[in-house]
């Protein structure tokens, strides 16, 4: 979690994932001193490193619209050949599960270890799975 001091400025958070939602509130822009910058929305960036792999969240950035967001993602997150595909999503469009519901969401799975595929004997002929 970020300190209050860090939340006073949007600068320390740039290029990093947004602060996790607190108390179920959706992610929102941090306080910004410059009014012009408050109009520039935040975008989450997803990069697919290779064919066959899924897009993975790599961070966030500010851009005026979706075209500029894809370009900025290209410049900020694929400079070292990290990707073959880029997705961007407005941070405000992400819906997060309510942390207050964590117990009812996640705890019931805790005692159902039989759901893991580790209870089967694999014949030697199958080799590595």
């Amino acid at each position, binding site marked *: 979690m970020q300190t209050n001091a860090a939340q006073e400025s949007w600068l320390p958070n*740039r*290029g990093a994932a947004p602060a996790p939602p607190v108390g179920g509130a959706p992610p929102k822009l941090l306080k910004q001193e410059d009014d012009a910058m408050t109009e520039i929305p935040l975008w989450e960036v997803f990069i697919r490193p290779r064919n066959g792999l899924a897009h993975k969240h790599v961070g966030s950035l500010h851009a005026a619209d979706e075209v500029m967001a894809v*370009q900025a993602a290209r410049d*900020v997150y694929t*400079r070292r050949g990290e990707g073959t595909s880029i997705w961007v999503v407005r941070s405000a469009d992400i819906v997060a599960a309510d942390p207050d519901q964590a117990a009812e969401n996640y705890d019931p799975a805790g005692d159902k270890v039989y759901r893991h595929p580790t209870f089967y004997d694999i014949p030697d002929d199958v080799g590595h799975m």
Partner: protein
Amino acid sequence: MLWEGLLELADDHLVLGHRLSEWCGHAPMLEEDLALPNLALDLIGTARTLFDHAGKLEGAGRTEDDLAYLRDARVYRNCLLVERPNGDFAHTMLRQLYFAAFMELYWQQALDHTDDIVRGVAGKAVKEMGYHIRHSAEWVIRLGDGTEESARRMRAAVNALHRYTGEMFEPSYSELPNRVALQGAWEARLKPVFTEAMLDWPNDVFMQTGGRQGIHGEGLGHMLATMQILHRAHPGATW
């Protein structure tokens, strides 16, 4: 001679690459602070290959460093457009758009050049210029069709820079693509961008020239002084 033509091209790329690198740490937002050096590195990479190749073809033993760091403004052959000061963001983006749109067409003509290195550079640079056009055009459109202030700055950039575009299409060395023939396609590429950006395409502009003959603006000397001082003070310095 081919090497002289390559030197001209290398000068264009190095000077514009250095100009863009001056934004490093000063861009209006982090995203652009990374994007502009990305563009700069594309250009400087191309310049290095061209300097190296020009030096070898010349056969006088000059290395890429000799050509980049030990020549004065008077013998630089870059066109005037690329040496124009960065100005504000509108100036920088328009200068980039003008140059990239020209170079993309130019490198397309060089894709089947007889020289292996020229062909190799062209193949790589066509893609890089494609991105430079996209990036700068999107900004030109957003600034031109943005706020009153951004539109005013964009128009000011057109007024200041358009007069330097004619020089790009001057005849050059016969061993390289014919620049004169590219002007129509260049204008056709840019006019829709201007329309979208709510900018008037300037007609009947007096075109400033002289860069190819070594007659440069005052700014190039200052730029080269900054760029060359380390190599001149510590010849052969590496890091």
